[in-house]
């Protein structure tokens, strides 16, 4: 990443190759549309390229940083698109569902981690999981979520916090770290 920070385009190709699928997958999960996901992923990677000097490995892996940037961009895109569009999961149709990348040993490990994280998430009380998913994957603000669920804002904040704290405790008890994948 130091080479990327020094504007080394070839070094960035390596970064792109390693993290493109993860970034695009998150963008597609959030936006639900192929075209929007491409825009989001493109903006995220160009932001990564242009702000490489700001990457601080002490604050997480490069993949985590890339995914945070992609998430911010996707949220911005979803909020510009409006609440109505965000409730749609996809307008591309099932025929445009994308093929998963070729399976590798790394993917196999990632799949295990994915299942375990999904499992921990599924163990949360439904109302806590729901607010976390609406916020993180749906791009809704806490006020929007409170309105959608007809629930006091303070309750939504409490569910988010409790849910994340339970996940933190569960992850702390686990044997693996997502950062090992990056």
């Amino acid at each position, binding site marked *: 990443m130091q080479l990327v920070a020094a504007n080394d385009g070839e070094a960035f190709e390596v970064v792109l190759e390693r993290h493109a699928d993860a970034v*695009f997958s998150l963008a597609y999960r959030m936006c639900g549309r192929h075209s929007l996901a491409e825009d989001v992923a493109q903006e995220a990677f160009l932001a990564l390229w242009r702000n490489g000097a700001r990457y601080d490995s002490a604050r997480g892996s490069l993949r985590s940083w890339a*995914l945070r940037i992609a998430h911010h961009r996707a949220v911005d895109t979803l909020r510009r698109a409006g609440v109505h569009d965000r409730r749609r999961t996809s307008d591309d149709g099932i025929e445009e569902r994308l093929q998963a990348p070729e399976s590798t040993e790394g993917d196999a490990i*990632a799949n295990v981690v994915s299942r375990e994280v999904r499992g921990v998430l599924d163990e949360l009380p439904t109302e806590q999981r729901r607010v976390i998913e609406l*916020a993180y994957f749906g791009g809704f603000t806490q*006020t929007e979520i409170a309105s959608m669920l007809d629930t006091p804002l303070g309750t939504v904040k409490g569910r988010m916090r409790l849910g994340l704290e339970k996940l933190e405790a569960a*992850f702390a008890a686990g044997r693996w770290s997502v950062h090992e994948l990056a």
Partner: protein
Amino acid sequence: MSSREADFDCAQRMDAAAYVLDAVEGLEPYREHLSICTTCQAEVAKLQLVVDRLPTTVPPAAAPQALLERVLATVRSEAELLRAAGSLADQPPSRPHRARSHRLSRAGARVAFAACVAVAAAIVINSGSSVRERVTPARVAASIPGAHVSLHQIDGRANLVVSGMPQAPLGKIYEVWLSRASGSLQPTDALFSVTSRGNGSVDVPASLHGVKEVMVTSEPLGGSSRPTSPPLIRIVLHA
């Protein structure tokens, strides 16, 4: 709290979860609070690690090859541009500016941005010749944190290139101003809007000789003779 200290009963600690989930409206007040509250800093750091794991639950999808090629084309172009501009960044334009005016529609901005890419390519091609480019980065207002703006001066022409810029509010357009060393503020007829992706460019239609700063404000459609809003973009040419 007015100083950096821990407040274990901080009422805003509850907002840390919404913050790391990108679910807080109006981020700036909470960011300001974060800059002084070590309790919330610790809470955010802890919960951010949890949120960082959520993308692993997403079904995998392959990034389209066309997307990767577009990103790499831009990266290579910019890398070459930065390399070419690096040793020449402090050199002034070599010829007097040729005044031009452009009024960019939204579609026009797209065309102009494409033209800018072509200019970048030309610099790469001619990097060994007498073509000189000076790239000056801009300072952008805190209200447009994702914007990247730079002024490209090449062969006596100046072109303002923006990316990540929000659309001008309804009924408004961006206007370029020149602040001269004499203290006068000169309006230009360089008005521009940006694409849905926040990209755009506009030629600066006047000589930059004696110009201290190039600025951009948001103005009513048609432009203004005096600024009606604070500068969003400032490019200091001569301190």
